[in-house]
């Protein structure tokens, strides 16, 4: 304790004290014929100071200061090292966060583990009557549907823009328990023309004004009331980083909806499958589908997490794609590291003299090593910082950017059914809705404001 106080209060003039003392000693020794030699003063100082210092902290601090000084004298080296490190780390981090976002993001719903995706007749899309049948059967706690293959025309007062919309069932927000940033979820009691805005859409077009809730917006020539605004952390059921502009509980009677169901508490997947099989058999009798039997290709797959990834067919190519991307990013990082290492090597060889001088002045090898490590550490930390910033930029842009890649010009031509063009256009824009069997293209025609939602045509 006493030592600590002494150390804290006496250290200010330690160096000048010792200097004066040694000078006095030398003077006396010289005056008296130098009977007692002192030896290496630098080492004496170092030894004497070591006792009075908080060595570890102060050494590290001094090393860092020294590193900053010596690095700032070779800005070219620092710049190239930082750029390669930053790029290497940034690419990796960005890739990784995008891959995680794509493959592992959990949808923003209450208790995502209890939700399953249901495939009937080899498709997870069905008409709303089917959904109603499933809901009425009472097998599941809740059944919701959504249809992604949409764009809708939004008139902002000056221009009309096609925006990315998702049509859902009335119980969608309440049933899923989607958290909202502002407003309320719509319910069965609401009219059809209500809308929930995505955070991005709201920020871009309503400047983040919470009073947007309750306002009207013009979609497909009809006035929709904004009832809710989704939080920035909203993740869709589909995942893959997709982010629609608006959700609305409004669809045509024959629209095909993706079927999602919440298992009752305690219900296992196998139980759900068994129950679903008998339900499908009943449906084949009571409401036969002329094209395909409901029982064929019947599947009940978990919605969230790894369990979903294992089930979904589109996962393998996407996973492989990301694996290759990550490997490439790792290679880039490796090259960056080699680059920096060789830069450091070159630097080290030019510093031989400096190090030799310091060794001969009595610096211990460990101290020198510490100092060089401090330099590398500084470089690494700065590089990681740059990489992190870079990754944030890329990843943030990625998350917010997904939007409809079809511009207004889309009305002037008919895309071919395979839509390689649309794919290409999307790749530049980040992924939107173009994955797997969801890639079917749908275009909203610039119809006159028609009462009712009956003016969407599929091409």
């Amino acid at each position, binding site marked *: 304790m*006493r*030592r600590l106080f*002494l*150390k804290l209060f006496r250290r200010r003039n330690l160096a000048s*004290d*010792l200097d*004066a*003392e*040694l000078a*006095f*000693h030398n*003077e*006396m*020794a010289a*005056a*008296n014929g130098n*009977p*007692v*030699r*002192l*030896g*290496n*003063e630098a*080492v*004496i100082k170092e*030894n*004497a100071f*070591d*006792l*009075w*210092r*908080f*060595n*570890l902290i102060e050494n590290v601090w001094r090393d860092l200061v020294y590193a900053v000084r010596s690095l700032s004298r070779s800005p070219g080296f620092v710049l190239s090292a930082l750029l390669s490190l930053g790029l290497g780390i940034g690419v990796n981090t960005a890739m990784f966060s995008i891959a995680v976002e794509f493959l592992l993001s959990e949808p923003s719903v209450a208790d995502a583990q209890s939700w399953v995706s249901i495939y009937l007749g080899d498709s997870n899309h069905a008409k709303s009557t089917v959904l109603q049948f499933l809901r009425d059967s009472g097998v599941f706690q809740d059944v919701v549907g959504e249809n992604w293959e949409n764009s809708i025309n939004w008139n902002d007062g000056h221009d009309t823009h096609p925006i990315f919309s998702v049509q859902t069932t009335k119980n969608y927000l309440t049933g899923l328990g989607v958290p909202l940033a502002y407003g309320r979820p719509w319910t069965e009691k609401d009219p059809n023309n209500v809308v929930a805005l995505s955070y991005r859409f709201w920020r871009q077009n309503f400047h983040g004004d919470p009073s947007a809730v309750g306002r009207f917006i013009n979609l497909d020539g009809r006035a929709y009331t904004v009832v809710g605004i989704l939080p920035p952390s909203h993740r869709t059921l589909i995942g893959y980083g997709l982010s629609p502009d608006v959700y609305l509980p409004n669809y045509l009677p024959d629209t095909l909806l993706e079927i999602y169901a919440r298992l009752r508490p305690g219900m296992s997947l196998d139980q759900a499958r068994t129950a679903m099989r008998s339900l499908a058999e009943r449906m084949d009798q009571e409401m036969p589908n002329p094209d395909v039997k409901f029982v064929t290709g019947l599947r009940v797959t978990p919605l969230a997490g790894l369990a979903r990834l294992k089930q979904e067919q589109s996962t393998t190519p996407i996973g492989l794609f990301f694996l290759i991307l990550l490997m490439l990013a790792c290679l880039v990082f490796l090259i960056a590291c080699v680059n920096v290492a060789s830069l450091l090597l070159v630097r080290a060889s030019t510093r031989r003299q400096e190090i030799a001088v310091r060794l001969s002045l009595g610096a211990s090898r460990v101290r020198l090593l510490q100092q060089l490590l401090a330099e590398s550490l500084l470089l690494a930390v700065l590089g990681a910082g740059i990489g992190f910033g870079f990754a944030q930029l890329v990843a943030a842009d990625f998350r917010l950017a997904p939007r409809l890649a079809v511009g207004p010009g889309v009305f002037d031509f008919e895309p071919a059914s395979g839509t390689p063009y649309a794919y290409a256009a999307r790749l530049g824009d980040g992924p939107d809705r173009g994955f797997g069997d969801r890639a079917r293209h749908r275009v909203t025609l610039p119809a006159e404001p028609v009462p009712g939602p009956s003016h969407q045509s599929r091409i």
Partner: protein
Amino acid sequence: MAKSAKPTLLQGTLDLLILHALQRGEMHGYAIAQCIHLLSEEELRVEEGSLYPALYRLELDGAIKAKWGLSENNRKAKYYAITARGRKLMEQQQETWSRLSVAVDRVLAR
């Protein structure tokens, strides 16, 4: 945090010699070295570079205290004086030393 090194035999001896020299009154570093040198009939020489680290360590341990004063030739010098704690330490070390030297003598006498 730095701790003063545990006195080895040599260092312990140096500490003992310094404390003993300081019993005669306060002295500056050069005088301590001279004193030890002369008292040992020029046999002992305070090891190069170990005097001041030892002084700083003793000061940190509270065995001696330092203050600035004027030397005989009117120069600013740092004077060291032994403290009560230092005296106690010296007694202990003297005891250890005499036991050690007697033991070494015994061994060498046979």
